[in-house]
């Protein structure tokens, strides 16, 4: 039982003050997660039920936004062909920090039913940092909502710092991307 006597607040250092601000920021960030309407694969069909009256994603503060600049969370729904991966990486880099990625379905975890196909990448995590996964080949809506709640929890416990990893070990990510795609920003894709 700490004493309830009023104690003079100790002057906090600059770093601590920033920490405090960041925590307050986390509270806002986790209660208003704007998702980027970027449906790559078939799991995207799960999103409308999450938005409508049964599960209502909006009560978590989540809503669709048009452009990566405005969005916080990138929902990668389904398999990722090489061409889409280029677009995904380009869009991911355009999002404003702190940003989070939620991988939908088994295709992002281990390639799912297309694991042996030449056109699809198996592990999304190697190319962009993923914060929370939602398992299932076409995950159920509860699973999707659960994925979102997990993400909110992660933010709360300050573990959702995939975007920091992207900065710290950027070289590793870039190497994987180059191995898979040749080069991300191609000049003249359609006339090769």
């Amino acid at each position, binding site marked *: 039982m700490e004493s309830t006597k009023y104690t003079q607040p100790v002057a906090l250092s600059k770093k601590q003050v920033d920490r405090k*601000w960041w925590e*307050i*920021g986390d509270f*806002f*960030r986790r*209660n*208003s997660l*704007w998702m980027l*309407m970027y449906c790559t694969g078939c799991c995207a069909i799960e999103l409308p039920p999450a938005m*409508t*009256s*049964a599960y*209502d994603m*909006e*009560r978590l*503060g989540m809503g*669709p*936004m*048009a*452009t990566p*600049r*405005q969005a*916080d969370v990138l929902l990668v729904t389904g398999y990722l062909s090489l061409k889409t991966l280029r677009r995904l990486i380009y869009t991911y880099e355009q999002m*404003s*920090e*702190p940003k989070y990625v939620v991988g939908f379905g088994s295709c992002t975890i281990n390639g799912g039913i297309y694991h042996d196909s030449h056109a699809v990448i198996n592990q999304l995590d190697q190319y962009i940092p993923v914060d929370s996964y939602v398992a299932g080949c076409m995950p159920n809506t509860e699973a999707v909502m659960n994925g979102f709640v997990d993400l909110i929890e992660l933010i709360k416990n300050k573990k959702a710092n995939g975007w920091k990893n992207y900065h710290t070990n950027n070289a590793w990510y870039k190497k994987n991307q180059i191995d898979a795609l040749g080069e991300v920003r191609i000049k003249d894709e359609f006339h090769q």
Partner: protein
Amino acid sequence: MIEILMNIGFGLGVATFGFVLQTAMGGINRKIAARLQKRRGPKWYQEFIDIFKLLSKRATSHGWIFDFGVIMALGGIIGTAMFMPITSSIVAFEGYDNFFIFVYLIAVGMLGMAMSASGSGNPLASIGVMRALTTMLAYEVPFMVVVMTIIKLTGTSSLTGIAVAQQTGDFNWFMIALPLGFIVAVMSLMGMLGKKPFETYIAPAEIASGPMVEYGGKQLGMLFIMHEITIFIEVSLFVHLFLGGAETIIMFLIKYFIVYAVLNLVSNVLGRFKIDQVVTFFFKWPLFFAVVQAMIAIHLGWVI
């Protein structure tokens, strides 16, 4: 000098009051809309969270004009809001709340946003700005004709004057006194607020939310604040002009809520116009009714 500073402080208070009021109203109305769709809907203070989340994020900027435009936009709108009378007695600058100041200072906000949107280098933003300006050209003309009739009848162009004229019984509420004008004003107000039928300039599907394409963290947050205060100005302008202003703050809040809620409900049900339809819509029936109303009210003197 102190008295002016007091007034400016009071004005800032009005502006923040407007922001807080409108953001809360926004949240409540999102909840009402959700309840209509049988879902729980967001927390009533969701709009606050959204704005503060945006302000906490690390944004990107496309050059000094991109930032200067946003500052000018928000500054202009805060300046306009400081003039807004809450009730006929609570007003920051006694006697200076002229109607034309609101119409033109909103244009400053619009100019600031347009400038920074064009400065962002994204063609979608320029198209969005173009649509915003053409829509403004469309909805402004009928609204001004109706307001002109009001000014001609009441004899003054200051908002408190008009509100007092309606309160003290010279005229009953212009909502009743000028029925046609009221309908036209509602349509123009929906255009001003950028509600659903006239939402072509921030159409998420067509032009990826128009001018706001390139805005990230704090710029987008500031634009959201500006958007909220603009709605506050426009709705309270409508309240003072057509619903006879308010003696007490509670009356003001009730009227404010009714107007905003009704508008929201109407807009939730409607689809979105094409830009060509918006440009010509206001010059057809609304302008016709506005002119007819003006003729009747001014030249024939039939005011209910």
